[in-house]
């Protein structure tokens, strides 16, 4: 291992970086649980939102609206608890990648996703740019958790430690 790789490895393994990652993991997870639950509460409203992206064929709209929030809640719960963390982080990274691409594509073709209207003023809406920025930062956080999280403050880690102690 080269000197540089060695110091990078030390930073990644440092308590400070691992605490940051644990905080990012829980915050990301909480966001996904919250986002999922609000969509589960109003399936018809969420179906309308999915439809307004004008990306899926009609027969896929409702299925997506029914299933997607539960995937978000599952991934979010996994991240909050630190259980099957890589799985949760992989799902959130995948979803955020899809969301970012869908948002960027609609922004570029002038579709206002709030109402599903094609509008020349849609790209002028700062909120859309904010969503784009938010989703891509969260995507970055998901990837960091996926690659570098070492189980600090995670349920998985606690269970392992307890088991080891009892042996």
């Amino acid at each position: 291992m080269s000197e540089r790789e060695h110091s990078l490895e030390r930073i990644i393994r440092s308590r400070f970086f691992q605490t940051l990652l644990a905080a990012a993991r829980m915050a990301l997870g909480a966001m996904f649980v919250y986002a999922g639950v609000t969509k589960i509460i109003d399936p018809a409203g969420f179906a309308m939102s999915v439809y307004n992206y004008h990306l899926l064929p009609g027969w896929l709209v409702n299925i997506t609206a029914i299933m997607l929030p539960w995937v978000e809640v599952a991934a979010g719960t996994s991240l909050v608890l630190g259980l099957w963390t890589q799985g949760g982080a992989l799902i959130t990274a995948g979803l955020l990648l899809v969301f970012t691409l869908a948002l960027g594509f609609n922004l570029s073709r002038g579709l206002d996703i709030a109402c599903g209207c094609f509008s020349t003023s849609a790209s002028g809406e700062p909120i859309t740019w904010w969503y784009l920025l938010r989703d891509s930062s969260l995507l970055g956080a998901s990837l960091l958790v996926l690659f570098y999280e070492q189980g600090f403050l995670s349920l998985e880690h606690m269970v392992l430690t307890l088991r080891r102690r009892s042996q």
Partner: protein
Amino acid sequence: MIQRIRQGVVYAFCMVVAAVSLGAVFNIARPGGIPFIGDWSPKAVTQTHAGDLELIAIDEAFGLFAKENALFVDAREPGDFAGGHIPGSVNIPAEKAAEHLEEVRAMLKTGKTVIAYCYDVHCPLGADLVKDLMSRGVGPVKVMPEGWLGWMDRGYPYE
């Protein structure tokens, strides 16, 4: 790194299967569940947007327009309106209904048919505008679901 991703894929797969099954079961069991395959045809979407509002087909609207018996309200944003609209139409963005009540009342007083439209059949703004106007006691205003895009597709005049 590869090992972490591989492990992630296995976990993710199990979680997605579990979540999707739960979602399906919950949707069947809950009150207010939605059909798994929804009807998103133009007709159904119009029904969702407009509900009980009075609709007018685009060709009928054009017929009235040709006889100068129609007045149009464009419910899109000012930028879109500026880019082209049905001749003589007035721009009232859907969220600004309250500021234009007198204008609409004056249009209704002419005895001509007042018709609201948006971009196309997917756009709810025309219906939203009419609902807001009606809740403030201003009407009747009809909704033309095909909207600006339908008007252009048929090669009708615009300005």
